[in-house]
């Protein structure tokens, strides 16, 4: 017998309908926030950023790949959660990136280009990408100010004396944090339209929205305690034995 409260179908339906009203209100509020994001002003990008890609050196403009909107995921590499020499990609960012390939054709078909960037040699990114079996474009911003300028990496000086992360001052930020930035291109000019960090990145993580409808929920003692790279879960079960 379960210890959870059980009910007749009619009782459940009444409770479910009440919750549905709250869910609908929340969804409409989400629509409103999306409209508000679209109303944010755009900031023209004056600086020239160059990335190393599979096709050679590429500017930020070229990253749009012919589409009008660009989403860049700031992927932590060589630093992050459960990172070592053999596993250089952050476990959390790898979890996020597991969501990309599925949405890629749909986003590309709807005028959005999605790429990830990291401050590491392209060769290392490609090697890790092969292991993970990913197809989304992943570019190297090594040697560029890009990740620093968009608030997802911090210089040694900033790590000592403080910087902004997620639009708040942080006394001693780590070398890198997760985030994503959106851009629009019009008449050849690139504009920064939006950035989000920290739990804002959960919007890329469908897994959490699935768990949020499940009876056990996210079921985590500390956020991230259960995250593994998708090829590491079996190893974890063996560890536990």
């Amino acid at each position, binding site marked *: *017998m*379960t210890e*959870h409260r*059980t*009910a007749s179908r009619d*009782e*459940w339906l009444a*409770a*479910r309908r009440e*919750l*549905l009203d709250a*869910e609908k209100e*929340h*969804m409409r*509020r989400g629509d409103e926030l*999306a*409209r508000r*994001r*679209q109303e*944010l*002003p*755009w900031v023209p990008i004056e600086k020239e950023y160059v990335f190393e890609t599979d096709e050679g050196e590429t500017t930020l403009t070229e990253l749009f790949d012919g589409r009008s*909107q660009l989403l860049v995921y700031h992927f932590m590499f060589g630093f992050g959660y459960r990172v070592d020499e053999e596993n250089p990609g952050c476990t959390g960012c790898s979890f996020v990136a*597991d*969501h990309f390939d*599925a949405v890629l*054709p*749909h*986003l*590309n*078909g*709807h005028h*959005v280009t999605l790429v990830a960037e990291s401050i590491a040699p392209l060769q290392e990114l490609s090697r890790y990408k092969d292991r993970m079996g990913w197809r989304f474009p992943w570019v190297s911003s090594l040697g560029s100010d890009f990740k620093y300028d968009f608030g997802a990496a911090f210089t040694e000086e900033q790590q000592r004396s403080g910087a902004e992360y997620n*639009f708040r001052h942080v006394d001693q930020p780590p070398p890198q944090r997760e985030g*994503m930035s*959106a851009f*629009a291109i*019009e008449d050849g000019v690139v504009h920064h*339209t*939006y950035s*989000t960090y920290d739990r*804002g990145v959960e*919007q*890329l993580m*469908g*897994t959490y929205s*699935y*768990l*949020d*409808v*499940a*009876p*056990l*929920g*996210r*079921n985590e003692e500390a956020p991230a305690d*259960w*995250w593994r790279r*998708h090829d590491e*879960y079996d190893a974890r079960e063996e560890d536990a034995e």
Partner: protein
Amino acid sequence: MTEHRIATRREWQSERDALLAEEKEHTRRSDELAQKRRELPWVRVEKEYRFDADNGTRTLAELFDGRSQLLIYHFMFGPGYEAGCPTCSSMVDGIDGLLPHLHARDLTALLVSRAPLEKLQAYKRRMGWSIPWVSSANSDFNFDFGASFDVEQMRKQMPPEDQLPPIASHNAKATGTGLAEYISEMFGASVFTLQDGSVYQTYATTGRGVEFLMGYYPILDRMPKGRDEGEAFQTWIRRHDEYA
């Protein structure tokens, strides 16, 4: 020159800060709603359902595959369809790659449709998915959980085509079936838990409630053009092998 409002970094920053506060509130409200879902009572499923699966006939309890939670997506693929619904397909693209993470949280995810198993298997091969997909062709399951309706009844009761959203006739055509046949199947998610051998239903959702399975929407909601679809919502969605 763009006609969109342009600002300095500082001006943008102050508007972004204000929006961030509201976004945080929205995230916390999401957490609260997830908590409320977990507090819903559970309804014991008394009826025996049998599904046609790759490895033979399976009961609802067997579909849990050793885990305690089961998320079923009612995929619109009726007996008269020639191919699966494109919008449902776009959702399954998302679920398929996440199975290792969901399994690690004690959650089995699978698809149920009313078309015969062979049709589902052929379409799954075309889409390159690995997620389990079972047929309820010989079961009341989809009818009992509000995901299938009698076609003749639907034909009598359905509103005229021009009162349905454009996506209905768009997807009827894409699945090679008539409008009544198409909308006699319904998309939705049903969630169950298995406790001491008994199955309980914990949650169900349909309509916009399935947007949690549409990973491209929260991304588009953060892009400069937003969802950019208006009344003709979802008609831009193609099967992943059909985009030009």
